[in-house]
């Protein structure tokens, strides 16, 4: 500055302010990344396909047990069992590993199969007792399109005590109401899980409309799956054998 020409002492100040604004905007995603925030949970507004009750298929003829398995008595006397549409949409595409073989006798509450996704396992327990006749050999359950009750059955068995064991199951309209409540309960479960496993609870919001995302369980850590097994599914009257 020679005192003879015009000189702006604060020439770069405007740009500095803009850079500061950019800094704040970039700080938010950085904070999320640094905290291992699950990208799926935080991209809440890009969702398509919310898991809402309106999209669930709850056929009236099936008996639903409170751990989200169903049983259907076919005309010839064999019962088909599987997981219902809610559980299917919650976990998404999984590998099925049967825990029993045809010919084996199972009791209600026995371990029937494993649902596996990337090393995370969900156990499915038999809703009724009987002798296994058939496994669904397709290996994996698709989570898209088609009738889940045709494609997502797990076993066929000859039931030994159908009437008394299905007494407490949900049917028809009652099943629909129960399924609606379960969606709500799942939403709360997700919110609680997000707080527990995403270290930055304040930054994770639930979606617009408050509906949980489909296949939301897919992206959650293995501890969340254990939680789901124990506290969400396990809060049922079905006894499990350890």
């Amino acid at each position, binding site marked *: 500055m020679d005192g003879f020409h015009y000189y702006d*002492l*604060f020439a770069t*100040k*405007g740009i500095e*302010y803009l850079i500061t604004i950019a800094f*704040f905007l970039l700080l*938010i995603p950085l904070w999320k990344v640094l905290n291992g925030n699950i990208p799926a949970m935080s991209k809440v507004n890009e969702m398509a396909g919310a898991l809402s009750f309106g999209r669930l298929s709850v056929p009236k003829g099936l008996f639903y047990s409170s751990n989200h398995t169903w049983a259907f008595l076919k005309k010839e006397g064999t019962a088909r069992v599987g997981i219902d549409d809610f559980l299917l949409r919650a976990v998404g595409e999984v590998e099925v590993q049967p825990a029993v073989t045809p010919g084996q006798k199972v009791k209600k509450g026995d371990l029937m199969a494993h649902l596996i996704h990337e090393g995370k396992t969900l156990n499915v327990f038999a809703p009724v007792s009987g002798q296994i006749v058939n496994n669904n050999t397709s290996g994996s359950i698709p989570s898209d399109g088609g009738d889940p009750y045709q494609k997502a059955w797990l076993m066929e068995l000859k039931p030994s005590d159908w009437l008394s064991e299905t007494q407490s199951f949900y049917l028809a309209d009652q099943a629909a109401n129960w399924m609606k409540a379960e969606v709500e309960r799942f939403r709360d479960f997700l919110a609680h899980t997000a707080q527990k496993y995403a270290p*930055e*609870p*304040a*930054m*994770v*919001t*639930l979606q617009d409309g*408050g509906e949980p995302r489909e296949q939301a369980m897919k992206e959650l850590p293995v501890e969340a799956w254990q939680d789901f097994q124990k506290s969400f599914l396990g809060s049922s009257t079905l006894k499990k054998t350890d």
Partner: protein
Amino acid sequence: MKQNADTLYLDSRNNSVWSFILQEMKPKGKIFTPFNIISIPIILVGLYIIFIRFTQGLGAVNNLTQEVPWGLWKGFNVVTGVAFAGGAYVLAFLVYILNMKRFKPILRVTILNGFLAYVFYSIALIIDLGRPLDIINIIIGNNYGVSSVMFLVGWHFLLYMLAMLIEFSPAIAEWLNLKKAHRVLSSLTLAAVVFGITLSVLHQSGLGALFLMAKDKIHPLWYNSYLPLMFVVSSVFAGIALVILEGSISRKVFTGQYPDDDKESHNLILKSLAKISAGAMFLYLFMTIIIFVHEQNAVYLSSKLGAWYLLEVLGFVMVPLILYCYSCTKYNRTVVTVAAVLTLIGIMLNRMNISIIAFRWDAAVPYIPAWQEFVVTVAIILIEIWVFRWVVRRMPVIRKSPEWAKNNH
């Protein structure tokens, strides 16, 4: 205070939001309290003076001169008032960043206080502007005076009010029973807090930086190049002092809302606040001494302003510091409150010295505020208290949040 429990929160099954709000507009509590009787005339006169200010110009209602351009409205309501509102960012730091849960019960009321303080002091600032409508220029860019400290202070006021509104908004959502809004707003709290603390530090120091260019015009005992730093440090204990004072008043006025068993937790809060305040004042005192020595100001002590300076520093910084320290050894609620009041007076003295008393102390025509300026200053504070009371009586600020919002408060 007789009020129906079921009107505390909006019950959307019975009322629409509108009819609820209209119903809430009705006064609660007694109309003819001493406070109301005194404050209403002052507010009315103040509003009339503000009307005159706009119809006849600033000169009609104040004694500002060409040599002393800032008076009571800027010097007190803005420069001093904002220091008092410093409790909001200090408490937000303690509760959200340092995770000190013991302060949680008073957090919301402090944030409310801070928010209202900034709103009303911004109103005071706008009333003091010569051409208030042109304030929009700094927003739309006509032009962005980025070299100006005042530009920074103005923008920060705006952004900080927004941050505090976000921090406080869960209380509004609880009042109106808006569960989804509550969830969304609560998730924004951390961002609002971090942003708010950063903004606060910068604009509290910015208020000090405003005076840096007036080097020749402020008496050497008060001017130094560390003004921004001193303003930040003093805002810490100024804010805490106001929190203490406001807490003790609120306890007497809103008794019905406090849970019966919280005397223990309240005393713990007061003790902790006294400790923090004492620490900050100790730092401030030593900074003052260092600056005094560095600027070689001893020569000024023998003058009238020198005595005034000593009164401010010794009487209203050192004495409350000693009182706070005393109450940490032998806790006494009255001592803490008295110390808080003395601190507040000290801050007022310091800030007003810098902005109007020691500013052009040598002017040919010394600046003495007009009575209208005093009335408007007091009126603005009283209106703020009215709004504060309105909110506290209706929203879950002091009383507990509804069950569904239990993650907060």
